[in-house]
């Protein structure tokens, strides 16, 4: 990536899609994501939210960190780096992964794309080149940042399949969840993966930054036929909580960035035990995780449905109303589709188990007056919202 000396004149970089976003933004409500300027809300939050759940949403993913990993030892390297058993991963497939430091604490999570035999793309929320290169010693593998060299767009929602097909991207019928295909869009190549962070039917599109605006325009050209909305981080936060997805650095601290001892988390503690395969052979952090598995887990990120409709915000969790404080809410949203308060909370376990009764105590404001409320919480193990149409292949046409 070539960075100009004058980069200081603009604190936030523009993604290849920025001009289109800027043209459509009525709110001018911008956020920072990995040094890029991205929207919180483009126009209207409720419309954008329902475009994910009932129509088609478009979100710029370019700022997401993307690393290209290739070489003879690419598989062996990733097998050592990641906690998950990768033996079933094949070219053209994607899998969800996490990686730990030597102490078995989560550094980050992400998606691993196998592009061909010895080439992979690892996408993550946080900056990982330092750890990826440190871990590469002794492996015949090259690791390179390609974050800024690929324009990425998430197209998600029940009509996303139909929208992309109408936009001229053909060949999605047999693309299964977690599949990847190299396709064409009006004469330029687009790689499409059936992946996302919304818990709905959806795709992620990857192309050269030079094609970014053409890709955007192709999609929005069918806007008359379909309801399509660009969305921002506020919508993403709502739908990812509904889908039960955690966000490293927000719901728990990433190990390498954690200052206070004990403030980092193991995969078991954040509910990622299902991507840890202790029997796959050695990997970084395994020894610590074997030891941890043998003990009762001390805490776990837990999905909660909170009674009532008052905004939960920042809250402590108690074992019983007026009981002992056992945890705290990390993220929360009102779910318009479930008409329920949802939360993900870090809760201390006793003998490896959640307390029987969980209550949230939180403050909320009405006409500038602060009140305190108690609300009972109900722990969930499954995603809050997981529609069947999400995984239908071929997807339902509209």
């Amino acid at each position, binding site marked *: *990536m070539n960075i100009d000396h004058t*980069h200081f004149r603009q604190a936030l970089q523009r993604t290849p899609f920025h001009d289109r976003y800027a043209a459509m933004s009525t709110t001018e409500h911008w956020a920072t994501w990995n040094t890029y300027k991205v929207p919180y809300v483009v126009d209207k939050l409720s419309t954008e939210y329902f475009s994910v759940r009932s129509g088609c949403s478009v979100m710029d993913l370019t700022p997401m960190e993307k690393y290209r990993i290739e070489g003879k030892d690419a598989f062996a390297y990733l097998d050592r780096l990641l906690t998950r058993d990768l033996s079933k991963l094949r070219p053209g497939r994607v899998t969800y992964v996490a990686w730990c430091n030597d102490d078995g604490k989560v550094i980050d999570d992400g998606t691993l794309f196998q592009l061909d035999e010895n080439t992979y793309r690892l996408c993550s929320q946080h900056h*990982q080149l330092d750890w990826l290169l440190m871990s590469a010693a002794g492996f015949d593998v090259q690791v390179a940042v390609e974050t800024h060299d690929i324009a990425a767009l998430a197209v998600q929602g029940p009509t996303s399949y139909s929208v992309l097909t109408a936009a001229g991207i053909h060949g999605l019928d047999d693309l299964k969840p977690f599949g990847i295909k190299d396709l064409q869009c009006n004469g330029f190549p687009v790689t499409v993966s059936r992946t996302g962070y919304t818990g709905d039917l959806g795709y992620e599109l990857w192309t050269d930054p030079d094609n970014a605006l053409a890709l955007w325009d192709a999609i929005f050209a069918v806007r008359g036929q379909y309801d399509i909305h660009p969305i921002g981080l506020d919508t993403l936060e709502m739908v990812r909580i509904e889908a039960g997805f955690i966000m490293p650095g927000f719901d728990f601290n990433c190990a390498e960035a954690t200052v206070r001892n004990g403030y980092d988390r193991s995969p078991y503690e954040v509910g990622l035990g299902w991507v840890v395969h202790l029997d796959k052979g050695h990997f970084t952090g395994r020894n610590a995780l074997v030891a941890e598995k043998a003990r009762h887990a001390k805490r776990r990120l837990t999905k909660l449905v909170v009674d009532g409709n008052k905004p939960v915000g920042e809250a402590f969790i108690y074992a019983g109303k007026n009981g002992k404080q056992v945890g705290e809410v990390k993220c929360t949203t009102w779910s318009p589709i479930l008409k329920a308060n949802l939360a993900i909370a870090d809760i201390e376990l006793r003998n490896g188990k959640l307390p029987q009764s969980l209550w949230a105590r939180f403050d909320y404001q009405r006409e500038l007056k602060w009140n305190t409320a108690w609300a009972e919480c109900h722990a969930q193990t499954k995603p809050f919202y997981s529609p069947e149409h999400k995984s239908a292949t071929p997807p339902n046409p509209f």
Partner: protein
Amino acid sequence: MTQKNYDAIVIGAGHNGLTNAAFLAKAGLDVLVLEKNDYTGGATVSRELYDGWKYSNCSYVCSLFRPEIYNALDLGRHGLKVVPLTASMTFKQDGDYFGSYSNPNIRRRELMRHSQRDADAAVRFDADIMRWCRLIRGFLLRTPPDPGSFKPRDAFEFAYLLKKFYELSETQIYEFIRFFTMSIAEYLENYFENETILAHYSGGSIIGTGLGVYSPGTAYVLLHHAMGDVDGNVGAWGFARGGMGAVSGSLASALLSYGGEIRNESEVAQILVSGNKATGVRLTSGEEITAKTIVSNLDAKRTFTTVMDEKDVPPYVLERARNFKIRGSSGKLNIALDGMPTFPALPKDSPLTLGHMHFTDTLTRLERAYDDWKDDRWSADPYCDFLIPSQYDPTLAPPGKHMATVFVQYCPVEPDGGWSDVKRDQFGQVVIDQIADYSPDFKDLLLHAEIRTPRELEDEVGLTQGNIFQGELTFDQLMFNRPFPGYAQYRGPVKGMYMCGSSTHPGGGVMGAPGANAAREILRDLGKPDTTPEEFSDD
């Protein structure tokens, strides 16, 4: 006229002496501060040595000064304003530069411009440095425990120290011990690969020390420069509006408001002792002033080998004082400029001139600069910390004109054949030439330069060998070993005599903490209410 009796006399009106005196006066003591110079502030001063320009001619930036002291003495109402600096940078020899910007997005992109890997490693570096800062900061406003003592208070303080230490994980404890004993170059190489980035972040570790970037113990000095903050922005430095004299000025104003007194041009010749008790001081004028509490703001070496009669000092203390590591290694230039110098390497409107500017872009150059000092020469290619504070502060220079301050590492205590004014000017010329290499119009704009070598710092300010920290900040001279084992709790070897300068814990930098900590011990001994603040806790 009968001689007035004071409760306490503080020798030296440096920022720590003034801080100490202010807390004593706030507790109701009748306090007199005696200063040898005709101005107050010690090494924390703003001086008009060229008509219309004000120089912070010793200390020049402010970060470590404890906000708790600022708050407790109400220094804001006594006129103190610390404006944060927004950048630091290193010019490269190839025409490029590395900038450390305060905006995190710009900082990250600039790191990426030099090394993608280093940009990512900065996350780990920042977390690790923050961890050590948090640990150390908890001790700044506490009296170090005597680990050999069984007194309840020592046991309690030592238990507190151990508790803080054991809040770290096992690995972090090992890392912390390594951190205390490593060189800055080796420490940074655990994180960064880019030569300029390594040189840039190393610089802070050699400032004021008689050590090089590869000398064990320099990693800790980085912390000493990173643990300060301006309004919670850890590691940020600031300019005191009006120069560093604003810090001592506000302290003096607070002291006077509590009824304290300051007498300039009153150099103490000797601390008077009778029956192992301090009884007062004798000035060089011969005048004697009595007080039961005598506090020395002078460095430990000067205190015990000069202003105390050697007979009054136990042999152990005298021996330690004579061998106290207090090597001068720094020089300083204060410059009046006819306008703002230009730096062709920087794009137009670059904010990097607003912060620290450096011209040493490799670890090798930094080490060579140190090699010269070891041979009693000033560095032929010195490490300079160059700032132009008048860009922020209109009180320092006439409109359109500027004031520059250059801290220079290294400068010998005594070059071969001793210092002369000619040699001093030659030293200054090396620095000016280095700056002019990156700023072609710099020499044309130069109206006046005050050049200070360790000789001037010692003669004018009274710092032994011109050591800016009143003693090296090495592990053997920190915490309960500062200034020497058994004397880290601010009490001297005779009853009623105390130390409050940077020779005591937590050491140098314009922190005020030694002065406040010493006041706490004095008030305790006198059975007076404690007026000193507790540290602001982060957790």
